[in-house]
């Protein structure tokens, strides 16, 4: 088929992608809060379930319709899950009603950024540190036989024979000589490298229920998505604490449940130690997010936390976010946070799933 038809379908496909984007953007708050996207996440793609992007028609309600089928079975035998639409389509229509659209995390991050009006992060660190990606896109006259480019060699030989008048169209034999041989070779594509590290800290004391952890998990997913979009490489460290803190892996972070008291300072101390030992503030963009339900053991620990933040954490951090999920009693840790004046410190309450959207906006809205 000719070029223009292919071009036309590309235009139509592009327009369709735009509509999908618009749809995701419009419903971003919903997607953020119901967590549907997490778990549908592949390596670089998320599969987004989008209902009814098709054109509406007046049609029969699917479920009442039923239909006619063929095969064995007695009256009352189930036919399989209820996704058949009762239409007579054979191989030409898939049964699924819900259209699933795949979107790269990159695209999703862009939508998130646009919708929440998130400013671009200006990374610190050595902007000139350059790594490079190697791609085999070049052609050279020397190289190993295994990289010989047949096409280019043929072309060079043909060119030479034609200019030399050796080419006979009636007997189109092209014989390359040593000089004609071309090899594929690599080019180095420089890439500025900005690395960032995120420390997630979470209270896992007895009062942090599964539901509260889910709020943390959803919030963290979106923070990750955005920061990954802004930094070429991202390291994530997880710290849990009750009265004492320890570093854990991602799975444990979201699933571990301890009982007992809460000493927030323990987590801050661990975090500060990790920073000191492993991350040079001149090279790393550091983010820390701490989630708890606001309960802390006594005013003394609050004061210790304040000290830790002001002296050891905030000076190194690009941003320190504190997210408070509901349910704690007594004096809330949020009040401590509020006493510290530092533009790198932000606090947000995440009261329910709808609150995630706003919390993300607060956390990432400064562009730090």
């Amino acid at each position, binding site marked *: 088929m000719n070029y223009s038809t292919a071009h036309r379908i590309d235009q139509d496909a592009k327009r*369709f992608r735009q509509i999908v984007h618009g749809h995701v953007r419009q419903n971003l708050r919903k997607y953020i809060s119901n967590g549907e996207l997490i778990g549908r996440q592949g390596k670089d793609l998320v599969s987004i379930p989008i209902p009814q992007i098709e054109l509406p028609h007046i049609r029969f309600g699917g479920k009442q319709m039923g239909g006619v089928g063929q095969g064995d079975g007695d009256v009352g035998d189930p036919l399989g899950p209820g996704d058949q639409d009762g239409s007579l389509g054979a191989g030409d229509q898939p049964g699924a009603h819900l259209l699933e659209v795949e979107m790269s995390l990159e695209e999703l991050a862009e939508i998130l950024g646009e919708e929440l009006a998130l400013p671009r992060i200006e990374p610190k660190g050595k902007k000139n540190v350059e790594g490079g990606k190697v791609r085999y896109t070049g052609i050279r006259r020397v190289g190993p036989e295994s990289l010989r480019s047949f096409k280019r060699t043929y072309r060079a030989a043909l060119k030479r024979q034609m200019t030399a008048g050796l080419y006979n169209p009636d007997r189109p034999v092209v014989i390359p000589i040593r000089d004609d041989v071309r090899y594929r070779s690599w080019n180095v594509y420089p890439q500025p490298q900005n690395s960032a590290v995120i420390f997630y800290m979470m209270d896992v004391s007895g009062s942090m229920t599964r539901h509260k952890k889910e709020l943390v998990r959803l919030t963290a997913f979106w923070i990750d998505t955005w920061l990954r979009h802004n930094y070429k490489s991202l390291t994530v460290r997880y710290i849990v604490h009750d009265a004492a803190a320890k570093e854990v892996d991602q799975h444990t972070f979201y699933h571990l449940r301890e009982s007992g008291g809460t000493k927030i300072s323990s987590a801050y101390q661990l975090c500060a130690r990790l920073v000191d030992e492993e991350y040079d503030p001149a090279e790393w963009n550091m983010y820390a997010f701490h989630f708890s339900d606001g309960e802390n053991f006594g005013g003394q620990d609050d004061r210790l936390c304040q000290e830790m933040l002001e002296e050891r954490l905030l000076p190194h951090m690009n941003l320190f976010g504190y997210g408070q999920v509901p349910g704690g009693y007594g004096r809330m840790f949020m009040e401590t946070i509020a006493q510290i004046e530092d533009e790198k410190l932000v606090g947000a309450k995440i009261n329910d799933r709808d609150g995630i959207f706003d919390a993300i906006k607060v956390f990432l809205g400064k562009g730090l």
Partner: protein
Amino acid sequence: MLITGELAELQREIEEIAFDYGLSFPEVRYEMVDYQTVNLLAAYDGFPIRYPHWRFGMEYERLSKSYAYGLHRIYEMVINTIPIYAYLLQSNLMVDQKLVMAHVCGHADFFTNNYWFSHTDRKMLDEVANHSARIRNYIDRFGHERVENFLDACLSLDNLIDIHAAGVRRRAPHVDEDDEPKTIKKIQAKDYMDSYINPPEFLANQQRRLENEQAQLKKFPVEPERDVLLFLQEYAPLENWQRDVLGIVREEAYYFAPQRQTKIMNEGWAVFWHTRIMTNHMLQPGEIIDYAEHHSGTVAVHSGRLNPYRLGYELFLDIEDRWNRGAFGPEYEDCQDHNLRKNWDKKLGKGLEKVFEVRRIYNDVGFIDAFLTEEFAREHKLFTFEYNEHANEYEIASRAFQDVKQKLLFQLTNFGQPIIDVVDANYDNRGELYLVHHHEGIDLDRPYLEATLSNLFAVWGRPVHLETVVKDKGEIIFSHGPDGSATWII
């Protein structure tokens, strides 16, 4: 790329066999394409040039994706034009190409000879390209978004057509009102006989009928109008370009309607002929297994779903067999003896003649109605299924012949679409549009209905109403106006 060499030779050979069997069709032009192109063409319903619209892009993505995942591939595509265009997939085996060409002979013959296709425009390739040029022109002049929005609205209404409109004249010729009598004439009678010859209640009745007729004439539309698209095209307050876009959508909807009306027959007929041509003539011994695999894939039944290819094919075989044996008519119908019926053979030999007749005059509804027999339903294990709300599953509801046939006919009536008429275009004397859905036991899909009404409102410009029935609630009017949607229970 048009086919040449061996394939062109095969085409000639296959078509010769087809003509010998009595199939007839104009020139078929095959193009050899790769899978990307075939997906692209399929997204455009076979036409290389369509107007720009995102739904083609969506369909293309879907097809490409399911091809990439190996879920689904398109072997063959034919378009109903003169000459007939058909596409062959480059990566197919030679035996597949032969099968596809034999299959295409069936479709080509069906397009050419089936009555329901007799009104379709055989120059549609040009027509569709013209549509594309016109719509592109409108996009340039009025902006992409405006045209797209209007196109979306029209496309969402494109099943509200009168499928028989091409062949039937619905509107009565215009009668001058003054010619019609305003009162009922009495039959002359003597006084004492008058009350017998002209009973007063009869007169009153007649008078009322006449008045109703007069009132009906003042109504607009005079008769309920099923071709909603035409009605809108004629009477909605549209700009010229909008009227044209609506006309384009309507024309294409009518072009594709016969294919939706004859899916079972058309596919069945093509399978019927590819089987005959391949097994009797074209197959090489080494190709049998590939052929068998492909053929059985075409007619396979997946998880209890009805396959139109198989149903159509088996019905044509059944008809051929019965008319060969003379197993029809009153004598056969009255015979109750199972063995006698089974071995019934009057050596009539009219099978082939009958199937040709059937392919000429029937569409799917008539086909099923006339030729789906109880024996056939039993032999092919047909059943109806229904949705069980408690289990969230479809389950087999009945194997009774009448149930199966009824359900199938219902699904095929009006090409499976709800029947909807424009009844009043000046509803409540406010220029609002009033539609009636002829409810036959199945409710409409409510979210879709509301979304569609909002599109109808966009076209009509004044509030629109649709009267239907909702289970457990009774008659309901769905409305859409400037303030959004509303419902009233009648």
